[in-house]
Every structure is written in structure tokens, then in C-alpha cells.
């Protein structure tokens, strides 16, 4: 064999080896593309299923079949004479501790000013703090308040509202049971017979659920949010808002 043909066969072997290697690489790449494709398809499927689950789980904003009477807005009740010179608008959750502090420092003066015709108050009671309660107190309390408003009118509602804030459960604990809520309603002047069923049956649950959605769409992101004559008070400074309310109702 000549050196030339030896060299040739060496080159051929090298070329064959290279072709084999390329073929192996090609197969490996194809396999990787298929593995990635399968994994991506599985991920997309899981995302789609979970997204569907989450969309159907969120029932806020659905039409409420039961809506309490005596409301003055879709989700609010205004208490006081329409001729009153000052208007206060409040967003409150019965489980919100800062709301309870706000109420403790203002409710006596506000009630007196309402009675004297100096102010009217637009109460937007909302419920979004069930996660901070061991027994969904936020939503049950609001349902009970809606029942009291529906059956007994705004004045009894206001007494019940004040009573609930005076007896607010600490965050993370179990709040008053339905039986206790009924007792508070009766104490405020409601008829036990009228309120017992709807409080126990949580009749306004969808309306209650929608209050938080509406608040958010109103551009209000927390409680208490206080407006005096349409002017929003600093939401990060509840004591200052309480002081401004006391000045306004004087």
C-alpha cells in the first residue's frame, strides 16, 4: 500500500467518524426538542387548567339575587337629613381594627350631628377581611347588618353598626357567632323573629361578596376610607381623618 492511499483511508475514517458524530448530535438535538416540547405542552396545559379553576372560583361581582332593602345606593346607605350641610362618606369593614378606633373616637359626635341635622353620612360597609377571621366574621357581620337594615331601617342599622364596632373581635380570632349577632340585632331594636332566619342563612352572601369588588372599582383600596364633602382624607392617617370628621360635625 502506498503512503498516499494510507493517508486517504485515514482521511476517510476521520470523515466517517465525523459523520457519525454529526448524526448522533442531530438525534440528540431532535430528542431534546421533543422533550422540551412535551414539557412545555404539559406546563401550558397545567396553567390553562389552574387559570380556569381560579376564574370559576372567584364569584365576586356575580349578580346578587338577594339585595337588602332601605339602601340608598347599590352598596351604601345614607343616614341623616338630605338638607344637612355636611356630607361624610365612609368605607368600613366590621373586622377592620383601625375602623373600630375611628368609630370609637367619632361615632358619638357623628350620631349627635346626624340627629341635629348637621351632617349626613353615606355608609359603605364592605367585607374583605374574612382571611383575618377564624370564622368569616367580616362577611357574616355585614350580612347581619344588611338584614337589620332591611328589616328595621337605617336608625336601627346605625345602632347595630356601632354595637358591632364596640365588640369587634381581635384579628385572627373567632368573632361573634350568628346567635350572638342576632342578640346584638335585638339589642339594637330589631325583631328577633325577623332577623334570625336571614342572619343564620347568610341570605345576602353574594351582595356582601360584591361590596369589596365595588369598593375596589370605586378606587378605594382599604378601610377606613373617609371623605368629607367629597374630599378624600389621607388613607394612611386615620387619627387625622377622625379629627377632621370631629371638626366637620361640630
Amino acid at each position: 500500500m502506498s503512503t498516499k492511499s494510507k493517508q486517504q483511508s485515514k482521511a476517510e475514517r476521520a470523515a466517517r467518524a465525523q459523520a457519525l458524530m454529526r448524526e448522533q448530535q442531530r438525534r440528540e438535538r431532535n430528542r431534546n426538542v421533543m422533550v422540551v416540547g412535551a414539557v412545555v405542552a404539559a406546563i401550558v396545559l397545567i396553567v390553562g387548567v389552574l387559570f380556569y379553576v381560579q376564574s370559576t372560583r372567584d364569584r365576586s361581582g356575580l349578580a346578587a339575587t338577594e339585595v337588602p332593602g332601605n339602601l340608598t345606593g347599590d352598596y351604601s346607605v345614607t343616614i341623616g337629613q338630605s338638607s344637612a350641610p355636611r356630607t361624610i362618606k365612609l368605607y368600613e369593614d366590621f373586622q377592620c381594627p383601625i375602623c373600630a378606633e375611628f368609630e370609637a373616637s367619632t361615632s358619638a359626635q357623628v350620631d349627635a350631628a346626624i340627629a341635629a341635622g348637621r351632617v349626613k353620612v353615606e355608609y359603605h360597609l364592605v367585607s374583605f377581611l374574612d382571611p383575618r377571621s377564624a370564622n368569616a366574621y367580616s362577611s357574616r357581620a355585614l350580612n347581619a347588618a344588611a338584614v337589620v337594615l332591611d328589616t328595621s331601617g337605617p336608625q336601627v342599622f346605625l345602632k347595630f353598626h356601632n354595637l358591632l364596632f364596640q365588640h369587634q373581635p381581635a384579628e385572627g380570632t373567632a368573632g361573634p357567632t350568628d346567635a350572638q349577632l342576632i342578640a346584638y340585632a335585638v339589642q339594637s331594636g330589631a325583631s328577633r323573629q325577623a332577623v334570625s332566619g336571614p342572619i343564620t342563612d347568610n341570605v345576602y352572601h353574594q351582595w356582601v361578596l360584591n361590596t369589596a369588588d365595588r369598593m375596589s372599582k370605586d378606587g378605594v383600596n382599604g378601610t377606613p376610607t373617609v371623605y368629607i364633602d367629597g374630599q378624600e382624607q389621607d388613607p394612611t392617617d386615620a387619627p387625622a381623618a377622625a379629627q377632621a370628621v370631629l371638626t366637620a360635625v361640630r
Partner: protein
Amino acid sequence: MKQWVGLLCRAVLAAVWLSAGVLKFSDAAGTVRATRAFRLLPESLVPAVGHLLPVLELVIGACLLLGLLTRAMAVATALLMVLFTFGIASAWARGLEIQCGCFGGGGNVKIDATPGYIRDILRDLGLLMLSAWLVWRPRTWLSLDSLLFRPLERFEDVDEEQAAVQG
């Protein structure tokens, strides 16, 4: 090498995504409200984004925990961190007084907004750096990627050899 650094990055990012995702997923309506509170998206998109975000967080978190498609998940993480940082900075600049709702909580007002914004932005930028590491070095210890795919270096070697042969 430095595969243990990548493992650490994956563990931290997975923990953050999974905890944030679980908290958001468990309160669907609250997450929608938190999304709305930023006032960046049209109302028609708000519910869909609020429902999709926790799902993405859970899935990205799970993939990072398993080390599955690490580089793609790190890129997704980095993109989301840039979006979140933009959203928070924008809310801050517009004087909105909201919580980011990053770990659930529905975008409620907080007592002292400004330090909260700074903290949230710094956290997101830190997480962005961890994900950048994984984009750069996606091969990590204890990952499904290393079971499913050949080590990347061997591919790179082959590519170089091939380039040398062809060149």
C-alpha cells in the same frame, strides 16, 4: 461549575414564588383587587391578569424547585420582576398609597407607604439578580434538567469542534 450557587438561587426563587403564589391563589378576589389597585391595566383585563398571575407564580415556582427548564423559568422570573418593579415604582410615583399585594392581601392601604415601596423594589431587584445568575448558569445540582438533557458543556464543546472542522 458553581452548580451549588444555582441550586441556592433556585431554592430561594422557588420559595418566594410558591409562597406568593399560594397566598394569591387562595384569595382570588383579593388578588384581582390588588391588581386593580395599581390602576395600570384596563378594567377588561384586570380579572384575567389577577387570576393568571398566581397560576404563573405557582408553575414557575414548581419548575424552579424541580430544576425543570431552568433557563426559561429564570427568564420568565426576570421579566416578571422587571414588570413588578415598574408597577411598584409607577404606583409610588403617582402617589398611590397601596400595598403591592406581592404576597396576597388585596392591595390594602398601609400605614407608611414609602418605605414599603422601597422594600418591595429592593426585594424584586434582588430576586432579579438571582434569576440573572440562572439565565447565565442554568445547569444546577439536583435538577430535572440534568437528568433530561446532556450537560451543556459537552454541547458547547461539540459546537466548537464542529466550528473548527468547518472553518
